[in-house]
């Protein structure tokens, strides 16, 4: 794998979205992954609907939270995802109005990535795109403490402030690299571009900070 990689430079990442006052990070994390997988396999970057998951994934709890693994199942069961334009985000639970005719993207399966964080870097790198392991993004949910006040730079919180045992947020890995010899993960958040570095969070890589290496997953297109 190369020493650094960033899928944003390849045009594979949609603009930063804003979940609003709603605990729907799980939906944004999953749609971000599917957007990337679809781009890799089909060459088209489509902004996909989180509201469809809020309304139609009956296993998860919309703004009260959800799990990526359930969301992948829901996408598969429903028959795909509509685009953001066709099924736009409102940030609260509505009646499901999914239309199979409007589905633009589908997935075949989903996989969990290894907990060995060091081996996740190749999973984000190019050249391995035929393998499910080659998922450019995963959903490593991170605990919240430092996130409320994060502004910029590479975050490396003390373990008690960002414990892997208290995971309560889901995000999207889009790249990795080094800044002045400090290794980082580039993480797309869903709190708007007026948070963090244009909506992104940079987290120390290689230390398992914030449980970034747990529960990582990907769709298979």
């Amino acid at each position, binding site marked *: 794998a190369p020493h650094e990689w960033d899928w944003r430079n390849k045009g594979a990442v949609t603009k930063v979205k804003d979940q609003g006052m709603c605990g729907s*990070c799980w939906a944004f994390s999953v749609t971000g992954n599917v957007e990337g997988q679809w781009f890799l396999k089909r060459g088209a970057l489509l902004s996909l609907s989180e509201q469809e998951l809020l309304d139609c994934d009956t296993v998860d709890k919309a703004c*009260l939270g959800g799990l990526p693994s359930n969301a992948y199942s829901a996408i598969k069961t429903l028959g795909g995802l509509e685009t953001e334009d066709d099924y736009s985000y409102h940030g609260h639970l509505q009646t499901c109005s999914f239309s199979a005719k409007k589905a633009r993207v589908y997935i075949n399966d989903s*996989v969990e990535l290894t907990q060995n964080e060091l081996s996740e870097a190749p999973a984000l790198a190019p050249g391995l795109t035929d*393998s499910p*392991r080659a998922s450019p993004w995963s959903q490593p949910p991170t605990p919240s403490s430092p996130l409320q006040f994060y*502004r910029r730079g590479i975050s490396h919180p003390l373990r008690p*402030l960002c414990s892997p045992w208290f995971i309560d947020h*889901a995000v999207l890995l889009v790249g990795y690299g080094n800044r002045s010899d400090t290794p980082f993960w580039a993480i797309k958040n869903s709190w708007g571009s007026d948070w963090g570095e244009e909506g992104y969070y940079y987290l120390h890589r290689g230390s398992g900070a914030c449980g970034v290496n747990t529960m990582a997953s990907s769709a298979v297109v």
Partner: protein
Amino acid sequence: APSSPAARNEAWVSAFPELLGPARYALEMYNHGRAAGTRAALGSVRGRVRRAGRGMVYSLKATLEEPPCNDPTVCQLPVAKKTLLCSFEVLNELGKHVLLRRNCRPVETKVTDDRNETLSSVLPLSNKAPLPQDFSVRMVSIFKEFVTKYNRTYETKEEAQWRMSVFASNVIRAQKIQALDRGTAQYGVTKFSDLTEEEFRTFYLNPLLKEKPGRKMRLAKAVPDP
């Protein structure tokens, strides 16, 4: 009480919009009989809900802000203690609320709590140093910038004062996180700086991730060579 162990385990959630109605009802009961201008205002609210028969029981923890009071023969609390921490239980059945339990006690403001904690235990370099004399003035100035930048509006003067105290507390929290960070990150004022930690968790985070095991997914295949 829940009808079965299963019922006890399901439906325990935490969601601010759902809690607002019961919280407002509890506040109304708390303020019952008080004249306008002497009523307490609702601060932060967190809580849980469980099913009970045909209704729902809301267990709430709320902070109430008492208006300033200078007459000790009239005031319910000493002037220095204007914040109350209350536990309420509210039953909502067939659209009607009933207050089942109420327990309130005065607490110090969060700014004072955090200042003591900051100076005594977290920032060793400033262990004995008092906060700067112009701390309040500077905080007001920073808060005004925040309100302008993020276009915040607060319904009442009391709410604005409460939000400023939360904001000040958060500035100190951010400094603690900054002092303990081992990377190059900068922490400080963000668009979430007027929210309590409980509000932030309730509005923006996802408690299910640490509570429920997800559907078991198959592991991705290992890469065969470097």
